[in-house]
């Protein structure tokens, strides 16, 4: 219970400080260069490690000849599987207990091209790089299975937990008056954040300090602690700013172990920066996917059956699921449904998370297929979506908490001018440019993990918020300052937020678009507790000017405490602190349920994902929703596709800061444009190697590729989804962009491209 009731929120700027369009408070530091990123630290005696990767995709390392490298000036150590100190296997991110075998960061058996096999540590980066080139590796090569299109890859193995079925999809399909069936494919895609991956590892006795960009300080710290068999508290990880992660900086990596091993063996701080080519193999991106989708429908376009079979590539020894049934199973109402998924092992790095893993390719499949059905039955692509609108979650059979998708369709269509579309493909043209309009929807679930935060009211009246949660550009610093400012009643400028340090209160992974909701919830709770204590002191302390008042009549606004009887400007917080002799008020709060308020559950909550609630746990199905309207221009001769304009309408519930949420949405949309038109890891089948492993050849959009993007928020506060009413933001907006563009390309050209990216050779 709190002394004041929370005001009703509307999800717009009228909400006050939280809900206002504040610019990022970390912006000036980033623009002026004073924001030090994790690897921009220079501990005394720091040396440099360079990783050596396999240049074959399959086989065995026979020998590593390090003699020349060891003799190279400045070289301190050539680290190989044979001389590296042994470390333990750590608990994985789900919390599954580890096998009692050593963890070897270097491979002896090679399962993909680019696998770490050794490292050189030298006084300078240049020396380490030069010496690494002198290390001679001999292999026993075998023929790799490079992609799931290799017949030897076979059909893979089923992941039964991905199976979703109701009704009888096959039978209903067979008797449907209208049937379509197609295959949709997405290639390997990579995170390629601009800030490179890597770390600085430093040992002081059995204390390990790590400066490492991380989306999950506490999860990664636990892994390092378990690798080296030291207490969790002995690991200090610092990640104050992150230059992009998109899912790739959430989990510990093998090179992280290498750096910490080298630092321990040499008793020197070791910096290990992953090269750009290594960002394609030191960790995985989105795996290649293929989905076969069969839709059965009435002649009017009402769905009778959805039959879905999906595959994604995985690595030879790991299970990495890209959940392809995630969107197709909830977007439309259908009486009969079947979705199954196989994993196909190939010689690749274990795939990882890339913005909206699962939802993204899943939406590409169903949102293209429903468009094809619309043409098949001759109705508008927007109308077929409304005709098959899912009024409740058809998979979980639960009501949506909120689903403002109908409102999104209406707002987006209106702002875009969808009604002006000539429905016939290849009917709209401007000179040599074929014009196409396309639409597609997207969704992302609301995931929930309890959070924790410390809020301090300091003697000078300023507020401090502290959490090991991180800000990778999405605005955590800013919205937590807004949250605390509003809850306590102070100007946002007086709130200082500290993040990205494992010595601060715990936070779960900044992934699954959950961090903003859980951290605003935790900060809100801690801030109200601090406020309560402040008011309690103000009422009860003998030296307080408010000592004779009733508790519930005091208010705090703009950093000043006042009572209703008080007609003046009130008394500043600093003054009350001074008069009552307090140097600080501190409130550490978490949002764990009562039964989990113990050390073991607390640790588990923040260092594994075991307590993350699914979107359908509880009485409602919780999701964010969006729709994208796209105009493309396709050169009639060259096949080049350019996005001319886009309007997206999105339901992320209440926005804590619309400016930052819009920025996140636009970032996702831009990434979606890249996915639709440019991004593709090109694999040389003979060598199992990604050939375009650099930013000159792996194309992402430039500013010139991006038109003005209009985003419209149609969300309303959803307190089933989160304490303060927000839903998922970060990963939502990329979902549905690629199918909207593919659908627009079909409308422009009459050519249906079902395998991304839509490059010019597919259209000429």
């Amino acid at each position: 219970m709190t002394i004041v009731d929370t005001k009703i929120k509307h999800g717009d700027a009228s909400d006050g400080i939280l809900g206002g369009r504040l610019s990022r408070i970390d912006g000036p530091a980033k623009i002026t260069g004073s924001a030090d990123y994790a690897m921009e630290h220079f501990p005394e005696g720091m040396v440099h490690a360079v990783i050596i990767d396999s240049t074959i995709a399959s086989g065995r390392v026979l020998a590593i000849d390090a003699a020349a490298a060891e003799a190279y000036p400045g070289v301190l150590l050539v680290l190989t599987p044979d001389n590296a100190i042994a470390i333990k296997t750590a608990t994985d991110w789900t919390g599954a207990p580890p096998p009692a075998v050593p963890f070897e960061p270097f491979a002896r058996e090679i399962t993909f091209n680019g696998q770490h096999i050794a490292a050189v540590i030298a006084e300078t980066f240049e020396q380490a790089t030069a010496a690494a080139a002198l290390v001679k590796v001999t292999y026993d090569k075998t023929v790799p299975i490079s992609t799931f299109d290799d017949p030897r890859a076979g059909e893979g193995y089923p992941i039964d937990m991905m199976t979703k079925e109701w009704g009888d999809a096959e039978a209903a399909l067979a008797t449907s008056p209208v049937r379509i069936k197609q295959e949709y494919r997405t290639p390997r895609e990579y995170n390629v954040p601009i800030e490179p991956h890597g770390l600085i590892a430093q040992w002081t006795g059995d204390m390990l300090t790590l400066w490492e960009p991380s989306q999950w300080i506490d999860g990664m710290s636990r892994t390092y602690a378990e690798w080296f068999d030291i207490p969790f508290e002995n690991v200090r990880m610092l990640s104050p700013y992150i230059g992009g992660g998109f899912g790739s900086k959430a989990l510990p990596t093998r090179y992280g172990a290498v750096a910490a091993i080298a630092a321990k063996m040499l008793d020197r701080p070791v910096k290990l920066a992953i090269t750009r080519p290594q960002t394609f193999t030191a960790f995985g991106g989105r795996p290649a996917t293929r989905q076969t989708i069969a839709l059965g429908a009435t002649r009017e376009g009402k769905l009778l059956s959805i039959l879905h079979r999906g595959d994604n590539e995985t690595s030879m020894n790991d299970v990495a699921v890209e959940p392809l049934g995630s969107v197709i199973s909830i977007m439309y109402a259908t009486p009969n449904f079947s979705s199954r998924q196989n994993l196909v092992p190939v010689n690749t790095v274990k795939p990882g998370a890339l913005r909206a893993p699962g939802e993204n390719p899943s939406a590409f499949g169903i949102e293209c297929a429903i468009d094809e059905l619309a043409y098949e039955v001759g109705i508008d692509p927007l109308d077929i979506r409304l005709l098959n609108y899912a009024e409740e979650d058809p998979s979980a059979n639960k009501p949506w908490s909120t689903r403002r998708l109908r409102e999104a369709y209406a707002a987006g269509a209106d702002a875009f001018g969808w009604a002006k579309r000539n429905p016939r493909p290849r009917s709209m043209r401007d000179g040599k440019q074929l014009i196409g309009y396309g639409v597609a929807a997207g969704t992302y679930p609301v995931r929930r993990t309890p959070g924790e935060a410390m809020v301090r009211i300091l003697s000078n009246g300023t507020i401090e918020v502290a959490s090991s949660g991180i800000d990778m550009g999405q605005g955590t610093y800013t919205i937590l300052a807004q949250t605390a400012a509003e809850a306590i009643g102070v100007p946002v400028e007086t709130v200082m937020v500290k993040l990205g340090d494992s010595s601060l209160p715990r936070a779960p992974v900044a992934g699954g678009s959950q961090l903003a909701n859980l951290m605003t919830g935790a900060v809100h709770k801690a801030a109200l507790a601090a406020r309560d204590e402040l008011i309690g002191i103000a009422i009860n302390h003998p030296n307080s000017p408010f000592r004779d008042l009733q508790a519930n009549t005091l208010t705090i606004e703009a950093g000043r405490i006042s009572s209703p009887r008080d007609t003046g400007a009130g008394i500043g917080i600093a003054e009350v602190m001074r008069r009552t002799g307090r140097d600080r008020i501190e409130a550490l709060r978490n949002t764990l349920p009562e039964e989990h308020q113990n050390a073991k559950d607390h640790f588990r909550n923040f260092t594994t994902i075991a307590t993350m609630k699914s979107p359908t746990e509880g009485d409602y199905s919780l999701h964010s929703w969006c729709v994208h309207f796209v105009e493309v221009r396709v050169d009639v001769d060259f096949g080049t596709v350019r996005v001319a304009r886009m309007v997206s309408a999105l339901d992320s519930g209440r926005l804590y800061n619309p400016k930052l949420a819009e920025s996140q949405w636009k970032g996702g949309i831009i990434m979606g444009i890249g996915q639709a038109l440019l991004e593709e890891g090109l694999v040389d089948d003979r060598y199992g190697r990604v050939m375009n492993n650099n930013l000159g050849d792996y194309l992402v959009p430039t500013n010139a590729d991006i038109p003005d993007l209009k985003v419209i928020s149609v969300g309303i506060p959803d307190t089933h989804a989160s304490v303060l009413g927000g839903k998922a933001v970060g990963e939502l907006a990329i979902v549905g962009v690629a199918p909207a563009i593919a659908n627009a390309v079909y409308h422009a050209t009459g050519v249906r491209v079902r395998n991304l990216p839509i490059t010019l050779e597919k259209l000429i």
Partner: protein
Amino acid sequence: MRDFSYLRASSVEEARRAAAMPATMLLAGGTTLVDLAKCGVTEPERVVDISHLKGLDTIRVDAQGAYIGALAKMNRVAADAAIKSAFPAVSESLWQAASAQIRNMATIGGNLLQRTRCAYFRDPATFPACNKRVPGSGCSALEGVNRGHAVLGTSDDCIATYPGDLAVALIALEAVVHLGDRTVAIDDFFLLPGTTPQKEHAMQPGELITAITIPASPAARRSTYLKVRDRQSYEFAAASAAVGIEFEPDGETIRDIRIGLGGVATKPWRARAVEDALRGKAIEPDIIKSASRLAVEGAVAHGGNHYKIELAPRVVERAILKTGAMA
């Protein structure tokens, strides 16, 4: 990158003497050299810095033509009003090349000498075989990922694409490369790979580019550069064409036409067959279309780059029509 000695040349003569030594590279803007050194393709023992040499960055345009010093930066040339007016294709090819940052650093001489983006060429640690790097060692691109590789001027030894834009315009406008005491016509400056793909140009050890000149002509004044690529900026050409046209006084009969092709050939490519087919003809769409097909006579695809054979003539056709319509 291995250690190298660094010499800051005080004169062109000193630079030439130093450049005659084995395993020596000249450093101007550094945008290619540093890039190739980082990926292990270029490992010079000596680097001779010429970036500060005086008098090599002149841009001069007169009635005879343009003189562009080898050290003139791409952006300066692209923005030069006289170049834009008398040689629009040159300016346009530079604007559409690389990125603003690279154009600010890179020089015209270095731009001509930029090397292919062939991924096999650029990754010696993984692909020891590359005829361009190690003559006789083989070519991994022939049956590999070759979406960006050449379809014209290829050999059994190499299908690496010449990546630049400027040289395509210069080929069309018959520029001349100055190597101090001798000059070479640009079409002779760039070599076909044949059985010696390691030899990309006609320079001898100890030679350096001091300038390029471009003769003025009506076709140069009415010229354009059209670049088709996967993204709108900072990307190499899928196919490009530089076209210059001079009309007879009737304003529709082609007296002179010059066509350079980029992104599809092992060297900047002159499409003479198209030129010959169009000289004396009226600029009519059907004529242009059929003549443009001749641009890819003899083209050979290797799988991923097949589309270029279809794309290149379309780019030529559009570029001719666009040039013809110029005011």
